[in-house]
């Protein structure tokens, strides 16, 4: 039978520990509430209002959502965003995985090359944008290289409606492939060498060993990269803002949903519409991420 006095001091100890726990997580909770939850709830509220920023919002219910369904610019931005996501996910996953496989092998100057390969991740996106604007001048360095083969006077990398979105995808890939390569590399390093050795002893080729042994065990890494890269691609803004002509041009082929939110909110004084687009973008990202996680729950292999 429990001693009543012991029971009282034990619950007091637990209460004190809970109080201190609450106290120490309070800053994080406040930060989350103020900078994440409150803006999110406010944004959802603004999506139901006519809000220009210059005057208080006026409730309009679902009017913004109804208008957006017919909004040509909004529909264009969805297509642009999906195109950018497609270009910034699957190819990036494959190339970064191949790079990780390469750097997993031992060869002379591997560490130096890995460092150089990783360097695009280091500068801010704005610096990257400024540098690439110069490189992608119609008569710039990249054109000079291509000209050795194609003999063209100029190439409109950024002003052609066809080449411009591809240029954005390539620049984005250049900055993020090294980062995902590192994550793949961490995943590869976590696979015990004995498993590879066992596969080879059983007569598996390099590709069979990779496809049948290593790749399944990279499942959790793949899920992480897929989710993060997809979310980042859907939120594309900085490159398109900094590099594309007139922030999203030409002819809005680079106007992603993120850029459209900025245009509606801070250029066109349509903050209600901007909030609506951001809610829709949030919903799309949530759905895609849930689908990805659901699909990845199939045959998952783990070392545990």
């Amino acid at each position, binding site marked *: 039978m429990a001693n009543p006095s012991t029971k009282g001091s034990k619950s007091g100890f637990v209460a004190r520990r809970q109080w201190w726990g609450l106290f120490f997580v309070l800053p994080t909770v406040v930060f989350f509430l103020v900078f994440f939850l409150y803006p999110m709830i406010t944004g959802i509220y603004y999506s139901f209002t006519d809000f220009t920023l210059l005057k208080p919002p006026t409730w309009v219910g679902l009017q913004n959502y109804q208008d957006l369904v017919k909004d040509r610019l909004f529909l264009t931005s969805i297509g642009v965003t999906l195109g950018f996501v497609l270009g910034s996910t699957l190819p990036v996953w494959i190339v970064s995985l191949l790079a990780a496989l390469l750097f997993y092998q031992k060869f002379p100057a591997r560490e130096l090359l890995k460092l150089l390969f990783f360097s695009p991740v280091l500068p801010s996106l704005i610096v990257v944008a400024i540098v690439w604007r110069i490189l992608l001048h119609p*008569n710039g360095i990249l054109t000079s290289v291509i000209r050795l083969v194609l003999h063209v006077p100029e190439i409109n990398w950024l002003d052609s409606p066809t080449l411009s979105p591809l240029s954005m995808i390539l620049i984005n890939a250049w900055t993020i492939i090294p980062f995902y390569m590192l994550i793949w590399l961490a995943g590869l390093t976590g696979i015990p060498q004995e498993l590879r050795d066992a596969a080879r002893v059983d007569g598996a080729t390099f590709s069979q060993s990779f496809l049948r042994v290593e790749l399944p065990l990279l499942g959790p890494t793949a899920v992480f990269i897929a989710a993060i890269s997809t979310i980042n691609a859907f939120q594309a803004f900085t490159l398109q803002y900094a590099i594309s002509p007139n922030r999203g041009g030409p002819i809005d082929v680079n106007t992603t949903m993120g850029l459209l939110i900025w245009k509606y909110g801070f250029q066109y004084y349509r903050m209600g519409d901007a909030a609506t687009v951001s809610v829709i973008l949030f919903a799309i990202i949530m759905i895609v991420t849930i689908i990805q996680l659901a699909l990845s729950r199939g045959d998952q292999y783990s070392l545990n």
Partner: protein
Amino acid sequence: MRQKLMILVSLLTVFALTFGGCAPVQTGGAAAPSGEQAAAPVTVKLWMHNHPPRLPLDEAILAQFQKDNPNIKVESTVIPDQEWDTKLATALASGSGPDLFNQATFAIGEFQKQGILAPIDAKAAGYADQAAVYNAYESGNALLAGATFDDMLYGLPTELSAYACYTNDDLWKAAGLDPAKDFPKTWEALKDVAEKLTVRDANGAITQRGFDFKWDAGIFMLLIFNAMVQQLGGNMIDETTYTAHINTPEVKQVMQYYYDWVNTWKLGGPQYTSNRADFLAGKLATDCDFGNWGAPQMVDAKINFSIHKQPRFANAKNDNGMANYAYFFMVNSGAAPEVQQAAWKLASALTSQPGEYLDKAGLFQAKADFVASDAFKNNKIMPVFLEEMGLSTYHPRIAGFFEVADALMRARDRVLNGENMDTVLAEAETEVNDILAKAKPQ
């Protein structure tokens, strides 16, 4: 029980921190009572966009103003140009906006529609009445029209601008041309001159443009393209009725000229470096989108330049140049009445030295007595600008300005990329009319 109490206290703290800082958005308030001196101390929050040559002059005037008006304290902030629109709008939304700000006429339509602007307090600004303000400026009714709505003035100009054509005389002479004699009077003749001034490398790529249009922002469709349409007797945007007239012969003629410039004659295009940067770098021989404020930059860049009027079309019906635009000091209608008075007084002080501002910052404030002075008449470039301003009108001062401008730019780029002009212009007219219908003040 104690645990529940602790949780409740924590949640209340979080709630207070989250919502305690919210302030109501400032809405339109009453205009300041006329002519009363604010005896109690007031603070005027002043925001200016960043124009480095102007800053030392502002600082000197602010210091003297506060000395002369010890009851008025000025909190001055200079905002980088790229951040201006975003910061101003969010500050006004949060109720922490400035009392006096230096805003361009591009946004004035929206601000006027939203009731942000206070009408001028002429007496606080040191004038007998509003008419006296117009009289104090050269062609006041025309040049202050940028801040006039329904016969009410809503600002004092910090700079009045139009574009004229600058030639890099060294590049012209290198091409065997004399800017004084050979500068073209028509757009049609400009094409031939530009070809002589264009330099290409062995691969056929342009290394020096003779002339090019300003491609890189939608507003130039309303400052430059629409002005060219007006030369032909058209007008894409009717500011009074909020209607668009884009699928017209005049627009088609200008759009065809733009198309030929890029695709037929290959003399320029949106893919090249911004005009102003290339002109200052000596890679563009003629630039027709600099205002008079550009002259100090050319002096710094050691460009040997001369100024010319804009070309007109050979079949022009109107003798206008490019659209006028301006930056005005505007007062926040949500500021307290005594602050509004102090703000107008400050605005008047900051616009009281037109000679200094033109000389040192390249900013033209069009005060009548200054324009009549020898200093102005002997100025190398200002008479050309003043003449062009007198012949031209302001760009449409509409709510939805930037959205309309971007829609027009989209149409232009579609045509440049080979889409059928009739289809594009018809669709653009529908799109812009939809934008105007939503933006129109009720």
